[in-house]
C-alpha cells in the first residue's frame, strides 16, 4: 500500500506521460486487470466504500452515481468524462491530462466495465488543444497495446474512447449542456428529470464524471475503497484533493492534500507561502468564481465540502482565488458578474436578464455613478435569479453578488458616496 498521501502530484512532470512510465512507476493498468475480474456490483461497492465525491464541483458520491445506471438497457450506455474545466480558477485537470493521461484512460475503462458501457468520450474544453493532442497520443498508445478497443486483455470486454473538443462555452461544464454539445447541438442545459443516468448521451443511460474523479479510480481499485476513504480526514470525504490556487499568493499552482486536512489559512500561508508582497489578505474565493466569497476573518475553516457549506460558501472544484487588500472588490465582483452575463446560455429569463442587470449596476457603482438603493436592488435581483433557473449557472452568478454586497458593503458604499473608487 502506498505510504505517500499524494497520489497525483509526484507524477506531474513530462516524463510521466508515456505508457512505459505509467506501467513501470504507477502500476499502470494493473487495476484494470483486477477490475475486469470483479463484478460491476463489486466495483461500485468499492467506490461507495471509498467515499469518493465528484471532483467537478457538486461533490456527489461517485459510487452512488454509478449505481443509478440501469442494469438492462435497450439503448447503449455511455461513460463521459467532463474535462471542460471551465470554472474560473480551476486548472488541476489540465495537469492530470497533460502529465498522467493513462490514469484517466484506465479510470474510464474501469468505470465503463462497472456501468456496462462500451463507448466513452472525453469532452475537453476547446482551448486545451495541446492537452487534447496529448490525450489522443495516449489513447493511440492504449489502442496499440490492446488496452482499448475489442476484447481488452482477452476478457471479451470492449471499450472505445474518443476525445471530443468543446469550442468555448463555460456552460458546457454543466453535464446536460455538455451532452447536448457532444451531440452536435448548442450547449444548452436540459430539463431534469430525466437525469443522464436514465437518458443522457444519445438518449442512452450515461454517467458524466470529472477528470480527477475518474483518474482516482485505478488507485481505489488497487488499494481498496477503505484505504482511499481513510486518506481523507473527515468522515464523508475520502482521498486527496487537488487544489488550484491562484491570485495574490506567493506560490500559486496545483497542490494535493488529504481531503479535509487543512484550513484555508494553512493553505494560503503555509502551502502557498502567504500573500503576495506580504500584503494584508482581503478575501478568498474558495471554490471557483461561483463560490460565495470569504473575508479574511473566515479563513480558519477546514477546507472541505461540509465545513464550507456550513459557513454559506462552497468548495466547488477546489479552486481558491486569493485577493490582497489593495485590489478593489467592487471591480472584482463586476468582472465575475460580467463573466456570468457572457456565459449565460439565455434559456432562462432570470439568468439571462438578471445577470445583465447586475452587471450594469455593478458597472455604474464602480464608475462612481451608483445610487444608494443599488445595493438592495442588487440583492433583490440576485434573489430573483437564485434557484429559479434550469441549471446552476443562475445560482453561480447570484451567490457571489449577494456575498460580496453583504460582506464588503462598506467598499460599495464608499464608491457610491465618494463618486469613485477610493483606491483609484
Amino acid at each position, binding site marked *: 500500500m502506498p505510504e505517500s498521501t499524494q497520489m497525483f502530484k509526484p507524477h506531474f512532470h513530462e516524463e510521466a506521460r508515456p505508457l512505459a512510465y505509467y506501467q513501470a512507476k504507477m502500476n499502470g493498468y494493473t487495476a484494470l486487470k483486477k477490475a475486469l475480474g470483479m463484478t460491476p456490483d463489486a466495483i461500485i461497492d468499492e467506490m461507495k466504500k471509498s467515499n469518493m465525491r465528484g471532483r467537478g464541483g457538486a461533490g456527489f458520491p461517485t459510487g452512488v452515481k454509478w449505481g443509478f445506471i440501469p442494469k438492462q438497457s435497450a439503448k447503449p450506455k455511455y461513460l463521459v468524462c467532463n474535462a471542460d*474545466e471551465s470554472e474560473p480558477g480551476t*486548472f488541476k485537470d489540465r495537469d492530470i491530462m497533460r502529465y498522467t493521461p493513462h490514469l484517466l484512460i484506465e479510470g474510464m475503462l474501469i468505470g465503463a466495465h462497472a456501468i456496462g458501457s462500451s463507448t466513452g468520450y472525453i469532452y475537453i474544453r*476547446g482551448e486545451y488543444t495541446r492537452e487534447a493532442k496529448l490525450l489522443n497520443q495516449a489513447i493511440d498508445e492504449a489502442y496499440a497495446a490492446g488496452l482499448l478497443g475489442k476484447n481488452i486483455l482477452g476478457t471479451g470486454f470492449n471499450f472505445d474512447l474518443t476525445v471530443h473538443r*468543446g*469550442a*468555448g462555452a463555460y456552460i458546457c461544464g454543466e453535464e446536460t449542456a455538455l451532452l447536448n454539445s457532444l*451531440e452536435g*447541438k448548442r450547449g444548452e442545459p436540459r430539463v431534469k428529470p430525466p437525469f443522464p443516468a436514465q437518458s443522457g448521451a*444519445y438518449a442512452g443511460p450515461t454517467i458524466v464524471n470529472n477528470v480527477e474523479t475518474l483518474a482516482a479510480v485505478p488507485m481505489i481499485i488497487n488499494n481498496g475503497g477503505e484505504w482511499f476513504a481513510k486518506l481523507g480526514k473527515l468522515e464523508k470525504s475520502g482521498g486527496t484533493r487537488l487544489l488550484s490556487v491562484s491570485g495574490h499568493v506567493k506560490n500559486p499552482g496545483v497542490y494535493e492534500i488529504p481531503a479535509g486536512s487543512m484550513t484555508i489559512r494553512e493553505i494560503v500561508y503555509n502551502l502557498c507561502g502567504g500573500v503576495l508582497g506580504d500584503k494584508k489578505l482581503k478575501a478568498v474565493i474558495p471554490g471557483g468564481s461561483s463560490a460565495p466569497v470569504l473575508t479574511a476573518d473566515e479563513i480558519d475553516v477546514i477546507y472541505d465540502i461540509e465545513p464550507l457549506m456550513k459557513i454559506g460558501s462552497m468548495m466547488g472544484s477546489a479552486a481558491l482565488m486569493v485577493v490582497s487588500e489593495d485590489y478593489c472588490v467592487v471591480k472584482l465582483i463586476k468582472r465575475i458578474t460580467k463573466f456570468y452575463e457572457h456565459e449565460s446560455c439565455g434559456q432562462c429569463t432570470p439568468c439571462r436578464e438578471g445577470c445583465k442587470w447586475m452587471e450594469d449596476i455593478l458597472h455604474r457603482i464602480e464608475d462612481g455613478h451608483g445610487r444608494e438603493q443599488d445595493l438592495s436592488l442588487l440583492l433583490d435581483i440576485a434573489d430573483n435569479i437564485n434557484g429559479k433557473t434550469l441549471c446552476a449557472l443562475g445560482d453561480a452568478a447570484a451567490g457571489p453578488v449577494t456575498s460580496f454586497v453583504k460582506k464588503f458593503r462598506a467598499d460599495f458604499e464608499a464608491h457610491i458616496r465618494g463618486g469613485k473608487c477610493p483606491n483609484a
Partner: protein
Amino acid sequence: MSKLLSQKFYDAMKKLEPRYPTKVALLLPALHAAQEEYGWLPGEVMNEVGDYIGIHPAQVREVASFYTMYNLKPVGKYHLKICTNVACCLRGADELVEHCEKKFGIAVGETTPDKKFTLMEEECLGACGTAPAMMLNDDYHENLTAEKLDQLLAGLK
C-alpha cells in the same frame, strides 16, 4: 460544384464517423476542422459542412454562433486572446490588454489593417496558476509580462 473543404477534411471526418452514433455529433469536430483550413468559417464553408452532415445551413449557424471559438468573421494571422478573468486580472491582465491596444493601435475585438493581429479578451483559459495567460492562435503563453509579450510578438513574421 467544386468543394471548398479539402480531401484531408473529408478523410478526417470519415475516420471519426464510426465513433459517434449520429452524424450530427460530428458538427463540432467538423467546424473545428473547417476553421483550421480557412482560419474562420465563411458562410459557404458552413453550408458545405451542413451538406456533408445532412442538416440545414441554419442548424450549422445556430450551433456555430453559440461557441466563442468559432470565428464567424475573418481574424488576423495572429489571433491574441488574452484572458481577463479573475485570476488573470489579479495578476495584471488589464495592463497587458492596454499594452496591446496601444502597440497595435486597435481596440479589443479589432484586427490591424494589415490583417496581421486580432486582439481579443478571453474568459478563463484554465491556466490561473500561471496567470496572466493568453492564447496565440492554438498555443498557450503563461506567466506573461508586457516585456515577454513584446519578445514573443517580435519573433512573429
